[in-house]
């Protein structure tokens, strides 16, 4: 009798290569019909190097142990009224943004990897994608559970999946993922597996998870640690798919380069939300967006693309623009949300004096020159009882769908306008990156569901903005939206901690 105990390597070989069918009565092209239309040439799937050799039994065992620990922490957090121990109620708005903007992307990633996990001819790639798909489904669940405790004590959490599909700023991350999922399987892997999960992941997760740690949010930081080992696997899969495509055929190089250019720009634009979260929404700051961008993008990407140069891959186009924008991005983003704070499902506010000084210190070339006077004016208006809200809906970029709040870096107080004409119609963009993406595949982006245009077409509820915001978006008006000062969140927080609202203090003093 032979030894029935298999080692992991043998088990994995049996799971993948040995379980693969011989396609005897159907054509390969018929079975894997999405494998070739993007122009990627694969000559030999057996050259695929599995990044992680994980079998289902070991997967379940390992994840179950991790999650048991994770849920024990969530329980402890809830029982100890952990929501009262965060630094400040303003912090919770970062978590609202995460739950409405990022967690649904985990669900989209689950869908996307499940889909491509069917499309590749190579069984190793299929199994790796299916494993990642399971991770993503676990992540969306654990994130919801990590944050559900806050839903009992703060406003703005209650309708997150509904909001993700409809609210104007959430159309930014949503359309990013819709774009990736409606692409072919190889482009999806470059978009999500490589660009997002490999190159940009640290810029997304480190700020949120360190932000949670610095601000007393044990539930979220524990989720972050728990997901780390999965993220490590995702990163190696992202890198493997790139190397595999580049090694398979030289004709793949220009296609892959164009996708890298596109998806790093698309991903970077989505990270605008992270930039403002870091610089404005964390009461205890981790580091500035600029510092984070320098470490996790400029340094990391430079060495990565040096490594990929042997395949003929260059630094992504528009990386220089992203680098130039680093001293402006978070301030421009926060200005957008402050302008439209009446239409957001979380609170906005002006930084305190101390916070303004931190911004001056971190952004010596830009903050005092361009942004502080604007903020001081807004604060003055608020103190006069006329908190500034922009009365008119903004112009949006056709590609990234962000309000056109970005400026030309040679003239940083001038809005960056770009335009294309296609098939007799005008299309407007925030940047060369977004314009070039449109120009290459206009038939895709003529379909952009731009929230402002949809409102004007009458597709988002009634004619009044209250109908759009209250009924169509399901923002609880006067509760979820508007400034943090005067919000029910602030009132509850002050009651928990016996704090006096700033307004009352002023009245007493005068």
């Amino acid at each position, binding site marked *: 009798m032979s030894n029935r105990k298999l080692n992991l390597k043998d088990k994995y070989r049996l799971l993948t290569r040995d379980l693969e069918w011989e396609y005897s009565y159907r054509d390969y092209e018929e079975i894997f019909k999405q494998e070739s239309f993007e122009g990627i040439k694969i000559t030999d799937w057996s050259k695929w190097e599995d990044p992680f050799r994980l079998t289902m039994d070991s997967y379940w065992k390992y994840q179950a142990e991790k999650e048991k620990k994770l849920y024990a922490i969530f329980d402890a957090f809830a029982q100890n009224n952990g929501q009262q121990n965060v630094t400040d109620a303003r912090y919770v708005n970062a978590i609202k943004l995460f739950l409405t903007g990022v967690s649904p992307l985990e669900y989209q990633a689950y869908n996307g990897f499940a889909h491509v996990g069917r499309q590749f001819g190579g069984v190793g790639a299929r199994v790796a994608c299916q494993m990642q798909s399971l991770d993503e489904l676990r992540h969306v669940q654990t994130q919801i559970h990590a944050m559900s405790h806050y839903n009992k004590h703060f406003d703005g959490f209650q309708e997150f999946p509904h909001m993700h599909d409809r609210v104007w700023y959430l159309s930014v991350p949503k359309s990013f993922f819709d774009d990736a999922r409606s692409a*072919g399987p190889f482009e999806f892997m470059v978009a999500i597996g490589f660009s997002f999960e490999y190159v940009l992941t640290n810029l997304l997760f480190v700020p949120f998870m360190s932000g949670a740690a610095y601000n007393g949010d044990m539930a979220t930081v524990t989720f972050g640690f728990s997901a780390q080992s999965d993220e490590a696997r995702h990163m190696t899969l992202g890198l493997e798919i790139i190397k595999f495509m580049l090694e398979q055929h030289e004709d793949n190089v220009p296609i892959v380069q164009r996708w890298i250019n596109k998806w790093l720009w698309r991903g970077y634009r989505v990270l605008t939300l992270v930039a403002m979260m870091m610089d404005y929404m964390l009461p205890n700051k981790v580091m500035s967006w600029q510092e984070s961008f320098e470490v996790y993008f400029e340094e990391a990407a430079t060495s990565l693309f040096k490594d990929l140069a042997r395949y003929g891959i260059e630094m992504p186009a528009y990386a220089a623009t992203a680098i130039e924008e680093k001293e402006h991005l978070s301030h421009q983003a926060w200005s957008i949300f402050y302008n439209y704070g009446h239409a957001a499902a979380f609170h906005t506010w002006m930084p305190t004096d101390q916070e303004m000084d931190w911004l001056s210190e971190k952004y010596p070339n830009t903050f005092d020159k361009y942004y502080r006077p604007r903020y001081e*004016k807004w604060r003055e208006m608020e103190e006069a009882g006329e908190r500034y809200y922009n009365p*008119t809906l903004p112009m949006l970029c056709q590609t990234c769908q962000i*309000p056109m709040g970005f400026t030309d870096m040679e003239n940083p107080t001038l*809005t960056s*306008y770009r335009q294309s004409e296609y098939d007799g119609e005008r299309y407007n963009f925030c940047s060369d990156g977004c314009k070039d993406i449109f120009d290459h595949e206009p038939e895709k982006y*003529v379909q952009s569901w731009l929230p402002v245009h949809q409102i004007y077409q009458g597709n988002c509820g009634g004619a009044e903005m209250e109908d759009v915001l209250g009924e169509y978006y399901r923002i609880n008006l006067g509760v979820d939206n508007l400034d943090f000062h005067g919000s029910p969140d602030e009132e509850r927080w002050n009651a928990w901690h016996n704090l006096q609202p700033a307004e009352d203090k002023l009245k007493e003093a005068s």
Partner: protein
Amino acid sequence: MAVAAITENYVGERLDRVENFHGNQVLYIGWDHHLMFCAPVAFPVSPQAPFRQVLEELIPGAFSLHPEFGEIDWDEVQWHLNGEPFTPDMDATLAEQGIDHKSAVRFATPGLNGIKGCGS
């Protein structure tokens, strides 16, 4: 190839055709170097509206909250239409002067440089 697609000659639905706006077209307006308004704004407006209506109704509605708004000398304002210098005709309609659907009109106000001159 206008898109990589599994179906040949794939054509996407144009979501923002002018016909979808109930007789209106979309007009974007931005005030250069006044970023208190974080982005240019968008209006649904009739292509038959005279430019005077843009000047007297839409622009004040969007931008009058700015402390410099009252100081604008409208005879000195510099206009751009879709990136090109442009002189609006107050009595002609938008359609008559080439302001079509999803056109972007920018105006600059020399001498007015925003809050404390910071371009806001």
